[in-house]
């Protein structure tokens, strides 16, 4: 990544031009051609630096509920537990963390009932019953942008 790539990334994250030829606007801001901009963006996508270019919808604004769960999972049950958790579409993050509560994941659901059903089903399917459900009651920051 050179300085131009970094500038492109910052523009694409923070001020994506919602116009017919967005990459032309980015190109002009960086003093390069549209063709070169597209080539650089495609390369950063191929390398995995850019996950995707698109919309980030606000789940809460759409009336959805979400939570952070922490589960205490015995070592021999981890593989199956992770498989069942990850298979759920509403799970977007799932990490092993350095604690007795060793598996931490976020779930989004259309409503509270759907969320409760998922958690009950998860407990039944995996035999893991110690799962904390910590709802966000106040959001101070939720920001997927990084200064590159």
């Amino acid at each position, binding site marked *: 990544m050179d300085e131009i790539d970094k500038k492109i*990334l910052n523009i*694409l*994250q923070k*001020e*994506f031009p*919602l*116009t*017919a*030829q*967005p*990459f*032309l606007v980015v190109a002009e801001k960086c003093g390069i051609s549209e063709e070169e901009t*597209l080539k650089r*963006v*495609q390369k950063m*996508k191929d*390398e995995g*630096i*850019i*996950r*995707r*270019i*698109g*919309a*980030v*919808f606000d*789940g809460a*604004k*759409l009336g*959805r509920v979400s939570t*952070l769960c*922490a589960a205490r999972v015995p070592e021999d049950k981890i593989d199956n537990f*992770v498989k069942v*958790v990850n298979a759920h579409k*509403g799970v*977007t*993050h*799932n*990490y*092993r*963390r*350095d*604690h007795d*509560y060793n598996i*931490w*994941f976020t779930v*989004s659901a259309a409503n509270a009932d759907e969320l409760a059903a998922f958690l009950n089903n998860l407990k039944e399917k995996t035999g893991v019953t110690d799962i*904390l459900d*910590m*709802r*966000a009651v*106040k*959001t*101070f*920051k939720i*920001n*997927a942008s*990084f*200064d*590159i």
Partner: protein
Amino acid sequence: MNDLELSVAQIVQKEIEITSRPFEKIAKELNLPEAQIIDIINYFCSEGLIRKFGAVLRHQKAGFNKNALVIWSVPELQINKIGEAFASLPFVSHCYERNPAFAGRYNLFTMVHSRDKDIRALVSSMSFLSGIGNFMILKSLQEYKKSSPEYF
């Protein structure tokens, strides 16, 4: 959301193509004018349904290879002030008050990211700034899933 808006949402929640006229591609697919696609996206943004439109990065690959979930035990009366103070820090990407608190006391949750500085040094500065000495750093040992949500 009407059917038209829903079909646009279903596409842009995933991704647009890296091409000169990405919205023209969507327009052709849905048999609508290009300008209308852009109008609908702008409408979603102005209504706050879309929080952000643009590139979503894999922060590790973008050089932010250190990150941790750091949780804080904050007295209820101070939570707004400290939550906002943490939120203003550039290396904090997420900050929430959660209920119930973890372990009965950790009620403020922050995600801390760093390019080169040690996470512990950043957390120390947060502790100093807030006066909160009761916190826990939960490093990730393994990533099992990290994806973008699909709501539609």
